[in-house]
């Protein structure tokens, strides 16, 4: 009898399971959900920064056709400061203070979207304004250390100052990265439906349990009275990770107006309502011996932070662990600006700092006349330089080799400005990548029905990373069934609690919970089979029995029966629920990568275009190479955006972001993208998770 599965679970490049509903327009994103008697919410927002409302006239808005309710700071119910995971504690519409441009000053509820939009335009106001600050250059002297957070603002090993002094070669540079906005294609959206004192929120969130907690606390409801649903997310990239004012305000407005309310942020409001990546400034100094051996690195970051709130940014986190070096110091200081709070954005922390570190390292390579890749290999870290811990697994050396080979790195012409095609110079470059592995506890339930189908239930989210596809693969792998018989229910607080879908942590955390629950289910099925006199496996030792090909089967005797039979005879579905939490902390855990690019640079104008990019990644075991590759090429394109296109300009005079749209803010488009290749090195991480994965 064959024991080979036709379609193994983990490692198969299966098509996306929700591909069909997505290509036919049938996936229900938040703003698509229809509920009876639905009304529309629209914000009127402040055009000024750092101000006090001295006059607010809503009479015309109130009288406009179709308007049901107008909420302002004068009539809004009072709400206590929001607790975590709210991104900001102070809810708008609570007093006359304006802290940032774009802050809501009124929320209109009306019968149609047109009515509500029209009425919002009728709100008039007068403000008393004070000078505002929007750029870190305006406040460098007053930068502060944000102590509260999930990492250390400052780290120090060895003696960096002495190390830099003693170095034969020293490079020192200042790098800046502007404000950037997440701009998921789906704007944030919330529909609030009350039934007595029970609230259902259909919400575009990366964290349904987080929304439930914040809203329940704000509205003084028991958490079980609040249900949050998010079946499909049109991207988030961090902007929907924490909880923002519009979610709480929509729930409040629906209660006060006495009808279900749908509120969708406009694209312009997306720039001022749910965070951004702060402007950062990186002072990097690297000292090395003539042979390229690193002696000391310092990386000092200054970043923008809202005046009213605190957000910790660890942009130099990667510098702490990337290269072997006896002395490394990093610092982070915040400049208070009059904007809404920044938040995590793909890729948080290292995504910014790696650019500075790797650029400085490149300068060092050319100062030493050493190949940039060779310089990185000479300083390869075998252990985490910050903690001295071994890595859970690290195959960056293999990634360098794979990437270099696929790119043709060795054969390239090395000297700067040595290759020209017409008006353009052709350049080659490479960099290392590193991202902290975040591991968060999650719970999942897995059950097999009497017909042999399997259902996973966990309040994770489908944000485009393929959760609906890979979780069934993980369960199928454990249960020895074809992934096609496994489905998942997600995005609903009626399901077991899962961590938020951010930090590239879902495969590790939720995947481990699914695997653990599926393993318990498997044990239960085997126990049922060997105890059941009607089973051909009756009386066998459970250690002799495995689940494979949809059957319970004896390894030694070959006796077998379909799993479905075991479940059916037990009289009901068989299920197991398990929580996975990270338990070991004796290892340092990171995802690694090596990225190689070829660019064309207009010799006169300096305009840079990407011709091709090869990335090779060490990220642990890959559950689905197809969806994983899409994520990695997507990440490369985000790199193009960061390096060449994206920047949210602010105007300090008017105290706001200038181009709150998709025309003035340059997102990469198809024509910006050259040939991309993403590769993964073969890897099993034995320590990071229950499924040997380490990332995503």
């Amino acid at each position, binding site marked *: 009898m064959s024991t080979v599965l036709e379609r193994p679970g983990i490692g198969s490049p299966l098509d996306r399971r929700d591909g069909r509903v997505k290509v036919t327009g049938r996936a229900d994103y938040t703003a698509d959900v229809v509920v009876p008697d639905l009304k529309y919410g629209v914000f009127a927002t402040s055009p000024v920064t750092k101000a006090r409302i001295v006059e607010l006239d809503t009479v015309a808005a109130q009288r406009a056709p179709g308007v049901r309710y107008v909420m302002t700071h004068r009539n809004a119910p009072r709400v206590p400061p929001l607790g975590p995971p709210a991104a900001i504690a102070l809810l708008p519409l609570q007093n006359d203070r304006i802290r940032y441009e774009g802050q809501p000053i009124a929320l209109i509820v009306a019968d149609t979207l047109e009515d509500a939009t029209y009425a919002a335009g009728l709100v008039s106001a007068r403000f*008393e304004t004070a000078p505002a600050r929007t750029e870190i250059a305006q406040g460098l002297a007053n930068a502060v250390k944000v102590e509260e957070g999930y990492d250390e603002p400052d780290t120090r090993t060895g003696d960096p100052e002495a190390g830099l002094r003693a170095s034969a070669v020293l490079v020192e540079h200042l790098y800046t990265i502007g404000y950037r906005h997440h701009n998921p294609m789906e704007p944030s959206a919330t529909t609030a439906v009350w039934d007595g004192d029970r609230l259902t929120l259909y919400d575009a969130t990366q964290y349904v349990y987080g929304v439930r907690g914040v809203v329940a606390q704000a509205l003084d409801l028991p958490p079980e009275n609040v249900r949050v649903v998010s079946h499909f997310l049109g991207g988030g990239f961090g902007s929907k990770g924490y909880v923002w004012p519009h979610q709480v305000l929509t729930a409040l407005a629906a209660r006060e107006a006495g009808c279900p309310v749908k509120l969708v942020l406009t694209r312009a409001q997306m720039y001022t309502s749910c965070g951004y990546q702060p402007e950062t400034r990186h002072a990097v100094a690297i000292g090395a011996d003539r042979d390229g051996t690193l002696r000391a690195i310092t990386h000092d970051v200054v970043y923008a932070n809202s005046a009213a709130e605190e957000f910790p940014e660890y942009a130099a986190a990667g510098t702490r662990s990337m290269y072997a070096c006896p002395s490394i110091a990093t610092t982070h200081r915040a400049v208070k600006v009059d904007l809404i709070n920044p938040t995590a954005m793909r890729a948080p922390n290292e995504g910014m700092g790696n650019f500075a570190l790797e650029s400085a390292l490149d300068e060092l390579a050319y100062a030493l006349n050493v190949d940039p890749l060779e310089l990185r290999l000479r300083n390869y870290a075998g252990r985490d330089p910050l903690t001295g811990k071994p890595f859970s697994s690290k195959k960056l050396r293999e990634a360098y080799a794979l990437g270099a080979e696929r790119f043709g790195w060795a054969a390239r012409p090395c000297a700067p400005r040595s290759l020209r095609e017409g008006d353009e110079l052709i350049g080659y470059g490479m960099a290392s990548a590193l991202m902290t592995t975040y591991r968060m506890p999650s719970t999942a339930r897995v059950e097999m029905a009497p017909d042999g189908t399997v259902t996973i239930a966990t309040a994770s989210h489908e944000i485009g990373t393929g959760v609906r596809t890979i979780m069934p693969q993980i369960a199928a792998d454990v249960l020895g069934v074809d992934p096609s018989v496994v489905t998942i229910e997600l995005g609903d607080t009626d399901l077991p609690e899962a961590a938020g879908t951010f930090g590239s942590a879902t495969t590790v955390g939720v995947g481990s919970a699914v695997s653990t629950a599926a393993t318990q289910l498997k044990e239960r099925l085997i126990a049922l089979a060997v105890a059941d006199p009607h089973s051909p496996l009756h009386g066998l030792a459970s250690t002799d029995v495995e689940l494979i090909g949809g059957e319970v089967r004896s390894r030694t005797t070959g006796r077998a029966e379909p799993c479905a039979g075991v479940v059916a005879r037990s009289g009901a579905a068989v299920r197991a629920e398990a929580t996975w939490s990270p338990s070991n902390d004796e290892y340092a855990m990171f995802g690694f990568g090596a990225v190689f690019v070829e660019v064309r640079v207009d010799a006169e104008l300096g305009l840079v275009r990407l011709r091709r990019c090869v990335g090779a990644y060490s990220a642990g075991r890959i559950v689905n190479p197809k969806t994983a590759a899409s994520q990695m090429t997507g990440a490369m394109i985000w790199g193009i955006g960061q390096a060449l296109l994206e920047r949210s300009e602010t105007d300090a005079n008017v105290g706001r972001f200038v181009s709150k749209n998709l025309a003035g803010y340059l997102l990469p488009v*198809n024509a910006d993208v050259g040939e991309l290749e993403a590769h993964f090195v073969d890897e099993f991480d034995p320590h990071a998770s229950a499924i040997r994965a380490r990332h995503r």
Partner: protein
Amino acid sequence: MARSIGAPAIGPADGARPAGIQTTLRVNGSVRRLELDPRATLLDTLRERLGLPGTKKGCDRGECGACTVHVNGRRINACMTLAVMHDGDEIVTIEGLARGEELHAVQAAFIEHDALQCGYCTAGQIMSAVACIGEGHAGSADEIREWMSGNLCRCSCYPQIVAAVQTAAQERT
């Protein structure tokens, strides 16, 4: 310093709702007679009145392509046009592309090449791709990149989108 905002809203001076306008839309083969608010865009009408939320709103001002539909065979941004301007027009949305359970070649190619992640831009990408092929603008990868650049994808599935359009274009010829 004092700053004020006034009433920039556009509408009748007396504040009455503008009178509805009788409009006939032919959407995905069926005739829909409606009394429409003249301020309603085609996009909002499809989504909020006609129960066709497959067409998405990303920007509401012609910058992202998420709302792409076909009107009389041409691709347009449904957010940039008022519904009442389309009396009698033939409109096809993402919901009307497949024949029953049989996917359009472009839809199938998008799944095959994993040309979507979150899927929010996908309706617009697919409607745009069908038109792009029909216009004869899918002759090479570079040509597709150029003629599909009105459709943003923040998940950044661009290489897969190019591959999917190429596959579907080849099947057609």
